[in-house]
């Protein structure tokens, strides 16, 4: 089992979700995060004061998958989020020790899907 964490551009969320659904990956958790990358964001200006060095708004996805779904998940995220510009984001893959479905108390692979 793996835990996939992806940081993507907020406006690419719809496209990524759509690609994931196509690969039959339906269970995702989404949160809004701030982060520093190499990229400069859209300039914001408040009463003439420019803000470019700020933390940028990103979207963070968490997806727990069985091993055979790992590559499809990565491919789907890339397909949805890639623009070739700086700021497209990152994908992190972690080993996942355990997964418990609270409702049934099932554990392991069967609890993920």
């Amino acid at each position, binding site marked *: 089992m793996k835990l996939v964490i992806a940081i993507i551009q907020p*406006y690419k969320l719809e496209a990524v979700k759509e690609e994931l659904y196509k690969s039959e990956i339906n269970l995702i958790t989404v949160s809004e995060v701030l982060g520093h990358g190499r990229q400069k964001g*859209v300039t*914001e200006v408040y009463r003439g004061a420019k803000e470019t060095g700020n933390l940028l708004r990103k979207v963070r996805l968490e997806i727990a998958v069985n091993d055979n779904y790992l590559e499809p998940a990565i491919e789907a995220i890339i397909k949805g989020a890639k623009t070739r510009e700086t700021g497209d984001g990152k994908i992190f893959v972690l080993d996942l020790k355990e997964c418990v479905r609270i409702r049934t108390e099932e554990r392991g692979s069967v609890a993920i899907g």
Partner: protein
Amino acid sequence: MVNSGDTAWVLISSALVLLMTPALAFFYGGMVRRKNVLSVLMQCFIIVCALSIQWVLIGYSLSFAPSKGFWGGLQWFGLNGVGLEPYSEYAGTIPHQAFMIFQAMFAIITPALIIGAFAERMKFSAFLVFTLLWATFVYDPLCHWVWGIGGWLRNMGALDFAGGTVVHINAGIAALVTAIILGRRSNLDKNIPTPHNMPFVVLGTALLWFGWFGFNAGSALAANGLAVNAFVVTNTAAAAAGLSWALIEWIHNGKPTIFGVCSGAVAGLVAVTPAAGFISVLPAIVIGLLVSLFCFIAVTIVKPLFGYDDSLDAFGVHCVGGIWGALATGLFASKLVNPAGADGLFFGNPKQFLIQLATVGITIVYTAVITFVIYKLVDLFIGMRVDEKTEAIGLDLTQHHERAYTVLE
């Protein structure tokens, strides 16, 4: 002779109607996604600024200077000759400039209503040019025809107390035309946008209702019995429509919603607008109860059926409600309420209903055609719609370099 009570009431009413445009900004702003809320507030606010200037320079003259022609002449350019003495053809007991500034607020809110149709996808520069052209070539002539001295619809006997035709049908049709040509927002079918701040919608509705007393009761242009009648029927129709929309939802969807009550109240205010100075209180209840039914059908059945993306239902509420109001005026108007008006169909004068019907038809055709032409012109030179990436990022950051809400301090 200037009457101090009348002048005070018209000045206060002008301020009330001005407040309706920022109120509309919050009503609409709450309905859009949060990445676009500032763009809607900005569009409404810049209209207040731009149209205020347009109006004192040329708008008032084009709309209200006496003329039998297409629009009023330019003899009142820059308010030349529009002074502090009453101009009795329009209002005999208040300074001419009081009438002018009251009318300015109507000229401001009308183009702002259209924003509801093209929210979340129009380029700001194009919007600004489109709005100024629309105000000058659609609002000003139509205003002249219905309310100006020598206006041919006025001479035909059309009844429009506070702007059902000039404001609501007019803006509503322009809304439909722009929504159709501009096309649907991207990803609409996969991800239905939900209102980002419902309390803003409620706040906006409350302030619209409040301001509408200036809109309708102020249109009596005097602090008199007619103003009181307009005030009472305005409140009654809004209340009936708010109740009615909630009831329809309760039956149709299982639960009444605050969004529904707000939509109903605004629809009721729209519908009673042309009738406010001509009807009594019981017809106001009927107008209110029925307008929610018509608008509910327009936004939940007709809109999905034809697939146009009238984002915030500017057509579905203002045009549909406005048409019902204009026709209802032809049904329920009574000289017992206002001797200067006319009797409607239910008071033995079917001709008035036909005049109302003709006025509605003429407005729809004129506004649709000219709006289409202006749209195409601006689209040719500037381009109306933002590109897909801009739309996805949102108009706040891309058009104004600002955002409404921070995530952390």
